[in-house]
């Protein structure tokens, strides 16, 4: 189309390339970047073996790894992991769905917002884990109390993020919908929801991260199973490597879960990425 335009001269091309390179950062540093955690592990390994740090608290990564393999082979690790994952899954779903619905509702209906937002806002600052003992009294030590405590935390995060998203909607877009004869449902599904989606996903990611914290805490006290229990029981038997295995597994699970939500976000909300 624009083939008549002259190609940039040698000098200009050099300048452009140099500028691009500068923006990318030095190549060597970019290659090394992802591997610095490995270097840390190596340093840790040596530090632990040569006694620069107390090996009772900081066992060498290699010994943590062999504990990991042991726990894996005995099936113990898998059992705890599955139990924890199910708790997250159920609790997260129980919290996220009402969170989105209530958030959109409060965002769309001014009277509902005026009446009910203060209730939620006043409960927001309560550290959710503090009501776990109450839940255990009411629902016992079983799964229900754990699902609920995770769900409650998730609900608040998702609800307030969704609400914020709906309130941020460009009002002009509602006018466009109305001017084109969109009915209330089409306005809701076609304007309010897509406008709120980026914030909904922000809420979901934050909530998911938070739910792993709540999970671990609830398994510390009220449980004989799950990764939190595994970490806690390792403390009482002073098997520090096992503790580290639990920490690492929970972190990796949390990371993977959040990445999954990010992936869903990229697929469902592509316009918010750019």
């Amino acid at each position, binding site marked *: 189309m624009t083939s008549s335009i002259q190609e940039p001269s040698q000098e200009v091309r050099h300048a452009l390339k140099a500028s691009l390179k500068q923006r990318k950062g030095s190549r060597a540093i970019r290659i090394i970047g992802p591997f610095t955690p490995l270097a840390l592990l190596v340093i840790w390994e040596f530090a632990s073996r040569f006694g620069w740090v107390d090996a009772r608290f900081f066992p060498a990564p290699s010994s943590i790894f062999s504990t990991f393999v042991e726990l894996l082979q005995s099936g113990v690790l898998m059992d705890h992991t599955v139990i924890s994952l199910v708790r997250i899954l159920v609790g997260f779903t129980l919290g996220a769905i009402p969170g989105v619905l209530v958030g959109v509702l409060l965002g769309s209906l001014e009277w509902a917002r005026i009446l009910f937002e203060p209730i939620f806002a006043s409960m927001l600052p309560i550290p959710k884990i503090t009501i776990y003992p109450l839940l255990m009294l009411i629902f016992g030590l079983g799964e229900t109390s754990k699902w609920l405590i995770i769900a409650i935390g998730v609900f608040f995060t998702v609800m307030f993020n969704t609400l914020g998203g709906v309130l941020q909607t460009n009002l*002009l*877009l509602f*006018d466009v*919908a*109305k*001017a*084109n*004869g969109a009915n209330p449902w089409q306005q809701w599904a076609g304007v309010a929801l897509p406008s709120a989606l980026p914030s909904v996903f922000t809420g979901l990611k934050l909530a998911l991260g938070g739910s792993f914290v709540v999970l671990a805490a609830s398994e510390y006290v009220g449980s004989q199973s799950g990764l939190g229990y595994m970490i806690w029981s390792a403390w009482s038997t002073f098997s520090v490597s096992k503790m580290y295995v639990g920490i690492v597994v929970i972190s990796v699970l949390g990371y993977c879960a959040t990445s999954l939500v990010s992936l869903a976000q990229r697929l469902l909300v592509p*316009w918010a990425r*750019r």
Partner: protein
Amino acid sequence: MSHVSISHLWKVYPSHHDGDAVIALKDVSFDIDEHEFVCVLGPSGCGKSTLLRIVAGLESADYGHASTHGRPSVVFQEHGIFPWKNVEDNISYPLALRHAPRSERKAVVDRLVKMVGLSGFERFHPDQLSGGMKQRVSVARALADNGAILLMDEPFGALDEQTRVTLQQELLTIWEETRKSVLFITHSVDESLILADRIIVMSGRPGHILKDIRVPFQRPRSLAAIRRDPEYARITDELWTLLDQSQAESEEEAAR
């Protein structure tokens, strides 16, 4: 038969800093006949958008009323295209709302994309478009809606001179074919002279009608042709005098 009738419209907005309300529209009355192209010309802030939003039914008047005979299609001043829809889906939005068949949507999009010069950008999202391109998408969307009345709020304001002239001609061509009633808001004297059958000149705040001028030029029009017309200089002069007067009025208003 009048297609748009506006009678004794008043609109006030509460002002934020002091108790005084802002009078946006002061007793505005005029009609637009079937097939008539009417431009509203006036300085910034005089209530042109407010007027259009009331006619579109998006805002209520505080006194008086506006009615339309037939469904209006609206081009908003700030384009208002959906960030999550690509060019194609933005343009066919009105058709999608009506569950128009895919083939019809495609035909309409193809024609309009070409008309507003966005061929090749059908799959682009708004954040990949320039300001003028977004404005063109919103014009195409209103044309896709194809209501009996077109309400356009400075649709070509954000465009470069060349594109503006092209789109003005396209709009005129469409209008010659369809003879819709048009309410077209602008602050460009030349634009109103090329497009309008009638020009309603509004004063600065509080916005009221200073004059309702009939534009005598033959159609089809081009800027070159109307500039040769001896009437051109006279009407241009008259419009500028009115605009200067409206500017002075609103400054007086501000000083008080």
